[in-house]
């Protein structure tokens, strides 16, 4: 039997606000337990929620970026369940009237573009954390995270493979960072995802029974978790069994999914409009205000890079994958006035490699675009060769010195004086009569030997063009 996988994702993106969604407590990560949980976050008696305006703007921003309908009228609802990391016994979320309605996101898989539908995106408050280290057999509850704003982005079941799911998740990840609404830090849980997975025979139209994989916190695990779950489901069906609709947890250590019975018990959430909060009205003014703040989105930026800078699709994709990287590249082109192709080679090559080696982000680069621009100019004006430039770049990386001062200090200037090069070449020809004979008798390959020798003799500083020219004239057959 041929099976088709059907996947829908629910992505939770923590919104990068200073304070919580309904209180004035800080959202900063990593504080001592319960030091950032105020009376509202703790759900103490009598306290009340008031909505953070930034949260609303961020949701609208996201909605506009995925071409979604923005609700003119939106309502917060209470989702009722008991859990120790949920202080009020209900989570303030949205049910019937979410801020963001139907939108979409295009993804590229195997060179093809596919459109994934976004059903909705709504605002809600995050829960706290249960710490399972042993406190005499008890669990410790830290409510610092309780009340952190979340945007839950729900997709249509439009993805047909784990690869597509990862591509979609990456796209959303890239977008929320572009929009400056989420820091995208997956280790800290700022960006996480639940996956709804089912399988069906390719000929079948209706969906199979789905399971929900909870809280997957890396791209790698999303792919692995979905693949292992798909295998499990196919095995069960092929053995004549049935899939049970349930919530499952992915165990990365064992690479398996297992049933989370604790989440299954009470799934009657009794949603109803939160009477402590009034309806949110999103005016046309707010919408156009936020629209005006929208940055150029990755998709458009990529197309522009291809058109304006004549980059290939892959390079343009890499450079537009983060706003900071794209800005670096464009600033470099402008500052250096060098060919965009050369700039892109340097950024996607040496620069990214050096950053990756030290685990740095582009905005932490020790070599600013201004410094790199000087270096590229020295290549363009033939002061140094591309090869020597790499050496200079390494020196710049570990010092504050400019390209020029490094070139000067290390005596790396190219030898372009043809007289000096001729002298070197005359010596090499005199020292290697055998190779001269071989070349003259038709062995073209030997020409490379002479180039190599000349560069070696000049310690790499001879201008390669000039070397070629002189060699050609001296070794005329």
């Amino acid at each position, binding site marked *: 039997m041929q099976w088709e996988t059907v996947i829908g994702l629910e992505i939770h993106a923590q919104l990068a*606000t*200073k*304070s919580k969604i309904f*209180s*004035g*407590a*800080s959202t900063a990560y990593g504080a*001592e*337990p*319960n*030091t*950032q*949980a*105020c*009376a509202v976050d*703790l759900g*103490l008696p009598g306290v009340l929620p*008031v*909505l*953070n*305006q*930034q*949260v*609303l703007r961020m949701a609208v921003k996201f909605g506009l970026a995925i071409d979604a309908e923005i609700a003119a009228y939106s*309502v*917060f609802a209470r989702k009722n369940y*008991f*859990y*120790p990391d949920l202080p009020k016994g209900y989570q303030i979320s949205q049910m019937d009237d979410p801020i963001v309605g139907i939108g979409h996101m295009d993804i590229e898989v195997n060179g093809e573009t596919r459109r994934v539908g976004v059903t909705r995106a709504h605002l809600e408050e995050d829960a706290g954390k*249960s*710490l*399972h280290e042993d*406190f005499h*057999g*008890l*669990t*410790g*509850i*830290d*409510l610092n995270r309780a009340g952190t704003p979340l945007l839950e982005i729900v997709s249509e079941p439009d993805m047909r493979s784990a690869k597509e799911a990862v591509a979609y998740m990456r796209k959303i990840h890239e977008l929320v960072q572009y929009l400056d609404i989420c820091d995208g830090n997956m280790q800290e849980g700022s960006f996480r995802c639940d996956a709804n997975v089912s399988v069906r025979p390719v000929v079948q139209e209706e969906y199979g029974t789905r399971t929900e994989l909870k809280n997957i916190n890396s791209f790698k695990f999303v792919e692995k978790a979905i693949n292992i779950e798909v295998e499990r489901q196919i095995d069960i069906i092929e053995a004549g069994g049935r899939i049970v609709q349930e919530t499952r*947890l992915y165990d990365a250590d064992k690479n398996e999914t297992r049933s*989370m019975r*604790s*989440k299954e018990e*009470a799934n*009657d959430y*009794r949603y109803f*409009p939160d*009477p402590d*909060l*009034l*309806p*949110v*009205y999103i005016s046309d003014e707010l919408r156009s205000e936020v629209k005006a703040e929208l940055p150029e989105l990755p998709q458009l930026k990529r197309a522009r890079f291809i058109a304006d800078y004549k980059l290939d699709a892959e390079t343009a994709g890499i450079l537009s994958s983060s706003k900071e990287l794209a800005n670096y590249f464009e600033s470099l082109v402008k500052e250096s006035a060098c060919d965009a192709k050369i700039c892109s080679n340097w950024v996607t090559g040496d620069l990214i490699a050096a950053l990756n080696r030290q685990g740095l982000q582009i905005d932490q680069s020790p070599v600013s675009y201004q410094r790199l621009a000087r270096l590229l100019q020295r290549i363009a004006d033939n002061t140094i060769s591309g090869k020597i430039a790499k050496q200079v770049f390494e020196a710049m990386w570990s010092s504050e010195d400019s390209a020029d001062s490094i070139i000067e200090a290390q005596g790396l200037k190219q030898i372009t004086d043809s007289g000096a090069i001729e002298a070197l070449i005359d010596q090499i020809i005199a020292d290697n009569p055998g190779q001269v004979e071989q070349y003259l008798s038709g062995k073209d390959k030997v020409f490379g030997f002479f180039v190599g020798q000349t560069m070696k003799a000049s310690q790499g500083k001879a201008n390669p063009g000039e070397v070629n020219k002189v060699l050609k004239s001296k070794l005329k057959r």
Partner: protein
Amino acid sequence: MTLTADDVNKIAYLARLGIDAQDTESYARDLSGMLELVAQMSTIDTDNVAPMAHPLDQAQRLRPDQVTETCQREVFQAIAPQVEAGLFLVPKVIE
């Protein structure tokens, strides 16, 4: 609508509300009485009426995104039943 003792137990579990076994029947009776009272609502047609969640037709006010709270952990945990190392303690949570 008449509720049985079994219904009461199910609802009580959803609300995590302990009810003594010997009281279940009387809760079932009282709740059935309340639902009977509530059932009078069906005597009127409300098809074209919009639900009203708030007495005043007002919009949600928005708060500037500012940190206004300082740490009051000691004060808050002074009234907590069981704390250790700044954490609220509960019986083991099994996932």
